[in-house]
């Protein structure tokens, strides 16, 4: 029997290596895999490259991971959120690297990784400093930038419902980066608010098919706050 459910956080985190690229779902406080981030803090992997829309807030989760000196490089679109105090301080002190990526390019680079597209052209950022050092090309009279796939060694995802095959549904704007990161992770680990029996999830409405998921931990952590 295929059963991707794991029973403990330790089991969920097993094998995440130092130096790993970790994709972290969520947008704002919605759809963030907070429990898995706490698990990763506990697990101990360091020298990480973290990919997320923001660079953490307060002193928990991703921010805490940074504060502990475990994040070498942050790849994100918007590091300067209210409350990104840990990142700001580390960055100003030169203790963390930053790669700023336009939000759609970030999503598409991960989708490309998941879809076996090593590189693609986009008009986003053409003519701006975020295109510096990147190959550009005219196609049909417009200038495009070559962007490369961004795979993760690990993807941390929050879902609304999950079954033992790893099929996921999401809730409302909790979907955001989660399905894209699930595709792009070599090891995709999910925390799910609810568990479903196989066959309970409507096959027409599955947000992430189980083929993209490796482990599911049931974490009924309730509504996002903040």
């Amino acid at each position, binding site marked *: 029997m295929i059963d991707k459910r794991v029973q403990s956080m330790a089991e969920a985190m097993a094998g995440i290596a130092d130096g790993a690229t970790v994709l972290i779902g969520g947008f704002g406080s919605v*759809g963030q895999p907070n429990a898995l981030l706490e698990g990763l803090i506990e697990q101990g992997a360091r020298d990480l490259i973290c990919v997320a829309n923001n660079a953490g807030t307060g002193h928990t989760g991703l921010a805490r991971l940074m504060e502990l000196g475990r994040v070498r490089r942050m790849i994100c679109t918007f590091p300067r959120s209210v409350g990104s105090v840990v990142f700001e301080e580390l960055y100003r002190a030169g203790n963390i690297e930053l790669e700023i990526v336009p939000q*759609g390019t970030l999503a598409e680079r991960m989708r490309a990784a998941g879809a076996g597209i090593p590189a693609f052209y986009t008009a986003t950022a053409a003519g701006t400093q975020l295109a510096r050092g990147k190959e550009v090309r005219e196609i049909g009279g417009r200038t495009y930038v070559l962007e490369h796939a961004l795979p993760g060694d690990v993807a941390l995802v929050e879902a609304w419902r999950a079954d033992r095959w790893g099929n996921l549904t999401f*809730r409302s*704007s909790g979907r955001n980066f989660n*399905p894209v990161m699930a595709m792009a992770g070599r090891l995709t680990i999910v925390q799910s608010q609810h568990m479903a029996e196989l066959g309970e999830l409507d096959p027409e409405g599955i947000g992430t098919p189980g083929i993209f998921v490796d482990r599911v931990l049931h974490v009924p952590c309730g509504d996002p706050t903040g």
Partner: protein
Amino acid sequence: MQTLSRAAMAARVAQDIPEGWYVNLGIGIPTMVADHVGADREVIFHSENGVLGMGPAPPADQIDPWLINAGKQHVTLLRGGAYVHHADSFAMIRGGHLDLCVLGAFEVAENGDIANWATSENDTAPAVGGAMDLAAGAKRLWVVMEHTTKDGRSKLARRCSYPLTAVGAVKRVFTNMAVLDILADGFHVVEMAEGLTREALMAATDAALHF
């Protein structure tokens, strides 16, 4: 001289949005535009975080904590709305399916360049979000912003001095002083705030104006 309030600027933008358009509104004054599209027109609002058919903010007792917009504010979903993931959401943007994006800006140049994400080449940790995707991807980019900075410097310029968000993308600018189209030869004044003279507008603008 009477210049427009932020609300009046948002209302002025709303006036130009016809029924049926798919529209993404940036943070700040652009977000306020939605409140000024009357019930007589169906306009479909898009948010980068995968919300198509976004409705107004809910009453405090009806907040769905799972439903936020790109500005991280609680919103609602209209009947007919849909949720998608980030790659699909930006496919709508990048693929030219949005009729309009309205952004704020630090500067807009007479060649349509826009700078709205970083105020210096050496900015510590600049934050771009979806601005570059929206500016490059939407069918039309409009900017709504104060005509000048707080210390009186023109935000309309011959060339942008701040790092660019996109090249040659802006089609129309709404300020507290005027509405201007950007054509091949630069800014064209479409209308001016009541009581404002051409001379006053020219004095406040660091670029040539066509009347």
